[in-house]
């Protein structure tokens, strides 16, 4: 074989293998869309067909929105993830600035604590935090969904690493202008940190939009359900009978993040792989 032939054969093999893998990865997505487009009679058949004979996607969406409060779940998802992110930033940024740029006794100890806290898995603290919230009487509320995640040790670490790279002259100049230390955080440091903050924001929003464990523990009320909890309860109510609307609901729940990802892939991959450091 000539080198030219060999590279052609290799290229074909590469695509063949990657396509086989891609089929495995995409199959659930394709089947979800296919099932959501079929009427009941076509779903419960033994013959496999991907393209529906009667197109019922809109009917299934209508049924899904009618039977489950999908809008409500989406709004809850937005409220909870946005609140968590805003509070994380408000709390983490001043701490990150102090750890990166200010000199004070115990700074190294506090930073070591931050590094330690990054390692604590969220399941480990669930029981005591649940008991605490029970004592305070704030279970089954937005507060219960938001408060445990207001402190992100990982966020502090990430922003501290970033602030380390900001030149001291910039801070000195701001102090000369009479800007307070808090002013420096929000008016000098924050604008320089937008890329890092975007990555952290994506990481935070994806993690909490998809979180199932904690909302499951603290919630009872239907009107507070977050998207994963909402779609899971819709499934329980339908108990294996109404797959068309159920798949339509699944599409609605995953759509916001998947569409955002397709629009800004590079940023999303950066943001999510930040967990890498975690």
């Amino acid at each position, binding site marked *: 074989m000539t080198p030219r032939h060999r590279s052609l054969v290799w290229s074909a093999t590469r695509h063949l293998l990657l396509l086989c893998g891609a089929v495995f*990865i995409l199959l659930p997505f394709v089947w979800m869309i296919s099932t959501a487009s079929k009427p009941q009679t076509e779903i419960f058949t033994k013959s496999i067909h991907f393209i529906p004979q009667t197109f019922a996607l809109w009917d299934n969406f209508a049924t899904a929105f009618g039977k489950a409060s999908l809008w409500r779940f989406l709004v809850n998802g937005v409220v909870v993830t946005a609140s968590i992110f805003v509070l994380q930033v408000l709390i983490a940024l001043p701490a990150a600035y102090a750890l990166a740029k200010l000199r004070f006794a115990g700074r190294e100890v506090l930073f070591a604590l931050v590094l330690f806290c990054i390692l604590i898995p969220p399941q480990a603290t669930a029981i*005591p935090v649940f008991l605490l919230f029970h004592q305070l009487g704030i279970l089954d509320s937005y507060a219960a969904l938001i408060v445990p995640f207001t402190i992100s040790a990982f966020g502090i670490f990430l922003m501290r690493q970033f602030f380390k790279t900001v030149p001291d002259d910039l801070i000195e100049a701001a102090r000369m202008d009479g800007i307070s230390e808090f002013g420096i955080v929000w008016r000098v440091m924050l604008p320089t940190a937008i890329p890092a903050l975007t990555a952290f924001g994506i990481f935070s929003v994806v993690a909490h939009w998809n979180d199932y464990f904690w909302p499951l523990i603290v919630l009872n009320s239907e009107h507070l359900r977050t998207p994963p909890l909402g779609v899971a309860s819709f499934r329980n109510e339908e108990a294996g009978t109404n797959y068309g609307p159920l798949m339509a609901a699944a599409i609605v729940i995953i759509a916001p993040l998947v569409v955002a990802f397709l629009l800004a892939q590079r940023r999303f991959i950066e943001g999510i792989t930040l967990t890498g450091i975690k």
Partner: protein
Amino acid sequence: MVAPAFILMFLLLLGPLLGVIALSFTDYQLGSPSFSWIGLSNYQDMFGDRVFWLSLRNTLTYVAIVVPAAVALGLAVALLIESGGSLRTWYRTIYFLPVMATLIAMSIVWEFMLHPQFGLINGLLHGIGLEGFSWLQDRRTALYALCVIGIWQALGFNMVLFLAGLVSIPRQLYDAAEIDGAHSAWARFRLVTWPMLGPTTVFVVVITGIRSFQVFDTVHVLTKGGPSKSSEVLIHTMYIESFEFFRSGYGAALTVVFLAFVLLLTLVKSALANRGVHYA
């Protein structure tokens, strides 16, 4: 400046961490007015409980299947994508999709695909003349079906980490290896890529390991640990004991076991990192 952050850190992370350890030595149940210190009683109960051992064995089985598969496939896909020029972004996007999609919603899709009568998987098996399974309702297959979903979800994340690792390998090393007689692709992989990816690989293995130990979502939605405890896993047992039976003390003891495993993985990681896997 650091006060709000550190007050919350003590209140919501460090305090509860100590709390869960302390709680594991008590007989506290949610709602009961008092509790007493009972020493290692919870641990004795746990070690005497068949469900705990089943749960631990299933969790370890899950980890032992998902970690090697998701790491090897992630590496394979990353290498295949890197080895050619065309359609890179497309493949990367496709493989990363499951990482973004809400796992609970996709679990429900998987459940329908694994449906005994009308599921796609059994349909395809019938098509080639094979007998299907009641995947999630059969104690022989339930745990393995969950493993496949776990691999499906973790693969793309590992791929991206390996892609980042591959990009950082200096080109000159491949040229040098070529001059030294490494002509085949396999020789280049064995002599350059694999050693240079050492730190990335350790890291990916540990991350996937920790995440696999935390497996909960798919179990809770699809099998509830059944049938007859065949897919019961550690965090699910902890959830049931603590938040359905409200046996907080016993649940805390289960949490401590979980924490011990996560800690062990973290220690393995730092031990390997310090030994400089780089030029192994």
